[in-house]
């Protein structure tokens, strides 16, 4: 009888302890990495990602999130700068009347390319978020549009180089078609970058 009472008391106390167990905040990396991370993030910041293998990752997930925050704030500022520079490039490109305009357009083009790639790097290489939700959202639209303006931006310097006649020979002329392509790709790139900016303004 006493043994039965002791066992019952033990079970009740155990149940009591489980129900009121304190929630611990000793997270491991596996607990806090999001489940549906993009491939680019997984390659760098996954559990076996490059940043961890090369010991470049911050010591804990909290510091990673602080780094992510700083990188994305920098991405926002550089993104705005890129938009401004690209806007002026579009204006310059459609109003090139002298050799000086062409030189300025070329130099500003390379600068815009540099700023753009730096801004992209801050976003792509930033540590992953705490969670990624399924479904379409404004931030996903921002990401999908980036595929368009990134592809455009990669091709623009080369198209510009061809447009200047640098590859023209006596038997082959590229600059006319390249110039047309440069204009079209430039317009698409600038439009998609502008739309990308607008997506962050919508809820």
């Amino acid at each position, binding site marked *: 009888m006493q043994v039965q*009472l002791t066992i*019952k*008391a033990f079970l*009740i106390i155990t*149940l*009591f302890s489980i*129900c009121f167990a304190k*929630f611990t*905040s000793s*997270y491991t990396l596996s607990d*806090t990495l999001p489940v549906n991370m993009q491939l680019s993030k997984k390659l760098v910041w996954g559990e076996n990602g490059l940043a961890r293998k090369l010991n470049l990752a911050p010591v804990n*997930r*909290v510091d990673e*999130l*602080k780094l*992510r*925050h700083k990188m*994305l704030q920098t991405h*926002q*500022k550089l993104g*705005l700068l890129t938009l401004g520079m690209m806007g002026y490039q579009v204006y310059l490109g459609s109003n090139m009347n002298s050799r000086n305009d062409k030189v300025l357009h070329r130099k500003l083009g390379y600068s815009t390319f540099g700023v753009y790639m730096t801004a992209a790097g801050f976003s792509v290489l930033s540590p992953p*978020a*705490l*969670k*990624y*939700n399924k*479904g379409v*959202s*404004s*931030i996903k639209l921002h990401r999908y549009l980036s595929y368009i303006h990134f592809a455009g931006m990669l091709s623009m310097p080369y198209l510009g180089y061809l447009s200047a006649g640098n590859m023209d020979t006596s038997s082959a002329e590229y600059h006319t078609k390249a110039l047309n392509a440069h204009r079209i790709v430039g317009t698409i790139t600038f439009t998609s970058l502008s739309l990308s900016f607008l997506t*962050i*303004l*919508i*809820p």
Partner: protein
Amino acid sequence: MRLSVLFLFVGGIFPNFQVDKTESTISYVGNHPFHEWQGISSQIEIETDCHAKRDDCNATITVPLISFISGNDNRDSNMLFYVDGFSFPVVKISFSHVNISNLLSIEESTYIAGEIDFHGYKIIQEIPLFIASDKNTISIRSNFSIQLNSFDIKRPSLLMIPIKNEIKINVNISGRFIQ
């Protein structure tokens, strides 16, 4: 005798309110010059002894911060970063010495002192509560605001413009006491 006292003690403070998570939500509304957004959670837990003690009871509403979804995963992650979701994973609202019988008889909101435990800070605030009963279902409604600086939370910014300090909270809970 000791065992029966232990049973009574355990029975008195075990959570006995089952929240209907398909009908219940707690949401916050944030405001930025560019837009307004809402984060919604249904992962609500209530611990209370109001079923047993209707004249003087206590209740605590707990919601995990990670359960709030605003439709933008970047913003949700940013929110968790700013409220330090690792160190303080839940937000709690506690009410003490509530006369539930009185509240059920009033057909309008009544202000009750509630303690909001958020980001490691506990602040007592008058919170309007409307509680109604329909057969076995209890409905709880509330709308109030909190100030981020009261909880020492730095305001996030978008394009270098910070959000507003005031966050509106909407509570809409349905549930029943478990026998």
